[in-house]
C-alpha cells in the first residue's frame, strides 16, 4: 500500500500525521519536571498530587472540548461519580486502590454513556445547560442520600489498602504523589494515542465541520458518544484518585466550581492540545496556593479578571501565545 501511495500527493499528509504521532524529546519534559519535583519539594507532595489529579481531570475535558468541540460545564458529574465509587468501596471493606480506580472508571463510563446518549442529541445552549443539569442532579442526589454518602458532612471512614500490596499511603503523601503520577502517565499515553488515531482525527473533523463529516458518512453522533464516554471514564479515574489519596469525599467533587475552574485552567494552558492542562493546571494551582490562602475572595476576583483578558486577547492560551511568538521569531531572520 505504502509503496504505491508513495508516488502520489497524499503521502505528504500521511507523513505529517505519522510525524505528529511520534514521541518527541520535549514531550518528556513535563514528566521530568514532575519526577524532579518529587525530590526537590518533598514537603509539597500533597499539593503535587492535587495538581496531578487536576491535570487528569482537565485532560478529560480537553478531550471532549478541545478535540470533539463539546462545551461542557458538568464534567464534575463523572469526577464525583468516580470519587464516590472508590470512596464507598473503601468505606465498605474493599480498599484495594487499583480495582477501586477500575470501578470508578466503569461507573463514570456507564454514567457518561447513558447521559451522553440523552444529552448529545441537543446542541448549543440546551446541551450546555443539560451538562450542568446532570451534575446538579447527581449533587442533589448525593446531598439528599446522606445515609449512604454522608451528605454535606462528606464521606468518612475510608480505609485504602497499600498500592499493589506494597506501598501504603503515608503521611507525607509520597505514595499518593507517585501513584497519581503513574496513573496520569498511563492516561496521558492512552489519550495521546487516541487523538492521533484515525478516530481522534475524525473527532477533529466533527469539531471543524460537522455537516461535512455527515456528508462523508462519518457516524457523528456515535463518535461523539464514544469520546464523551471515554472522557467520563478518565474523569472518573481522577475522582477515584482524589478519594483514595485524601481518604475523604466531599459534596464539592460534584460542584460547578470544579468544572468551571478546570475550564479556566484549560483555557490558560491552551485548548485542543494535549499539553494545555500540563501548563495551565500547575500555574493556576500553585498561584492559588500562594495567593488564595490569605484571602480567597481576592483570588476569585483576579482570576475572573484574568480569564476575561485571556478570552479577549489570548484566546488560544499560553501555548498558543508561545506558538505565535515562535512563528514570528522564525519568520524574522
Amino acid at each position, binding site marked *: 500500500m505504502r509503496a504505491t501511495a508513495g508516488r502520489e500527493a497524499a503521502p505528504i499528509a500521511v507523513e505529517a500525521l505519522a510525524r505528529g504521532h511520534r514521541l518527541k524529546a520535549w514531550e518528556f519534559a513535563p514528566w521530568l519536571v514532575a519526577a524532579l519535583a518529587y525530590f526537590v519539594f518533598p514537603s509539597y507532595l500533597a499539593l503535587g498530587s492535587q495538581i496531578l489529579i487536576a491535570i487528569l481531570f482537565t485532560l478529560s475535558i480537553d478531550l471532549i472540548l478541545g478535540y470533539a468541540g463539546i462545551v461542557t460545564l458538568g464534567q464534575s458529574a463523572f469526577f464525583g461519580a468516580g470519587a464516590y465509587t472508590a470512596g464507598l468501596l473503601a468505606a465498605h471493606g474493599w480498599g484495594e486502590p487499583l480495582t477501586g480506580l477500575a470501578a470508578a472508571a466503569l461507573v463514570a463510563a456507564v454514567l457518561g454513556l447513558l447521559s451522553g446518549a440523552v444529552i448529545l442529541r441537543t446542541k448549543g445552549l440546551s446541551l450546555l445547560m443539560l451538562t450542568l443539569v446532570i451534575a446538579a442532579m447527581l449533587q*442533589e442526589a448525593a446531598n439528599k442520600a446522606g445515609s449512604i454518602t454522608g451528605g454535606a458532612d462528606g464521606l468518612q471512614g475510608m480505609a485504602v489498602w497499600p498500592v499493589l500490596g506494597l506501598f501504603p499511603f503515608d503521611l507525607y503523601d509520597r505514595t499518593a504523589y507517585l501513584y497519581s503520577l503513574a496513573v496520569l502517565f498511563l492516561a496521558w499515553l492512552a489519550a495521546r494515542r487516541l487523538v492521533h488515531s484515525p478516530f481522534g482525527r475524525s473527532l477533529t473533523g466533527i469539531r471543524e465541520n460537522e455537516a461535512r463529516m455527515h456528508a462523508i458518512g462519518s457516524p457523528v453522533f456515535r463518535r461523539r458518544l464514544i469520546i464523551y464516554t471515554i472522557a467520563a471514564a478518565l474523569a472518573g479515574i481522577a475522582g477515584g484518585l482524589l478519594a483514595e489519596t485524601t481518604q475523604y469525599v466531599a459534596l464539592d467533587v460534584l460542584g460547578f466550581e470544579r468544572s468551571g475552574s478546570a475550564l479556566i485552567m484549560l483555557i490558560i494552558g491552551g485548548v485542543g492540545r494535549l499539553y494545555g492542562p500540563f501548563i495551565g493546571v500547575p500555574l493556576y494551582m500553585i498561584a492559588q496556593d500562594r495567593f488564595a490562602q490569605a484571602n480567597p475572595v*481576592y*483570588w476569585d476576583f483576579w482570576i*475572573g479578571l484574568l*480569564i476575561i483578558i485571556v478570552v479577549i486577547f489570548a484566546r488560544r492560551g499560553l501555548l498558543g501565545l508561545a506558538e505565535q511568538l515562535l512563528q514570528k521569531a522564525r519568520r524574522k531572520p
Partner: protein
Amino acid sequence: MNAALSAAISIGFHGLAYAMVLYLISVGLSVTMGLMGFANLAHGVFAAAGGFVMTRLMNAYHVPFPLAVAAAFVTVAAGSVVLERLLYRRLYGADELSQVLMSIGLIFMSVAAAQYIWGPQPQPMAPPAYLNGQIDLGARSFPAYRSFLIIAGAVVVTLLWLGLERTRFGARIRAAVDNRRMAQSVGINTSRLFTWTFALGSGLAALGGALGADILAIDPGYAQEHLIYFLIVVAVGGLGSIRGPFFAALLLGIADTGFKYLLPEFGAFFIYALTLALLLWRPQGLFGRA
C-alpha cells in the same frame, strides 16, 4: 376546606409568585440569547446587583420601597450598557466557549466584589408596612407581599408583550431576532438595538432580583447558585421568545414549589429530571423554532 385542596392552593399561589420572579429575571437572558446569540451565564449577576442596590438603599438610607426598586432598575440597566460596550460586544459571533468563559469570569469577579463590599451574609429584605401582613379573601388569606409580587409581575409581563407587539422598538427587535442581516439591510441599527435590548433585559433582571429578594435571598453567591434555574427557564421556553420563558417559568415555579412541598426529601432532583425529559422531547424548547 379539605387539606389536599388547601395544599394545592398554597402551592399554586407561592409557585406563581416564584414564577413571576423567575420570569422577570430570565426574560432578558432569553432575548439576549435569541438576538445576539450570546450564551451569557452571568445574567444572574444583574439580578443580584438589583437586589443589592435595593436592599442597601432601603436598609442604610431608608429610601422608600418603590423608589429603591426603580433605582435598582436604572442603575443596573446603565451599568450593563458599560459592560455591553466594553466586553460583550467584542464576543458577539465568537464561539460558545469564549462567551461561556467570559461570563464565568464575570461571575467570579462579581461574587468576589459582592463579598468584599457586602460581606458573606444574605441581605435582609423588609417589605414596606403597607405590603406586610395578610390579605383576607374570605375563605383564605394570602401574604400581602407575595400577592403584590404576582400582580406586579403580571403588569410587567403585559407591558412587555404589548411593547413588543405594538411599538416600533418591539417590531425592530422581532425583525432582528428573525433575520439579523435582513434587518440591517432595511436600515435598522442593530448595534444600537442590541445595546438597548441588553440594558432592558438587565434592568428587568434587576427588577426581578429586587422584588424577589424574599424568595431568592440576596447573597454574594446568588448569580452562581441560581444560574441553573435561569438557564432552565430559557432553554425550556425557547431562545429569543418572550412568551416561551413565561410558560417555562410558570411550569418551573409551580413544579419546584410542589416537589419541595410534597417530596422535600428529594430536593430539586425531580425538577432536573423533568427538564431533561422536556428537552429530550423538544430540544429547541417549548416555544422555540426548530
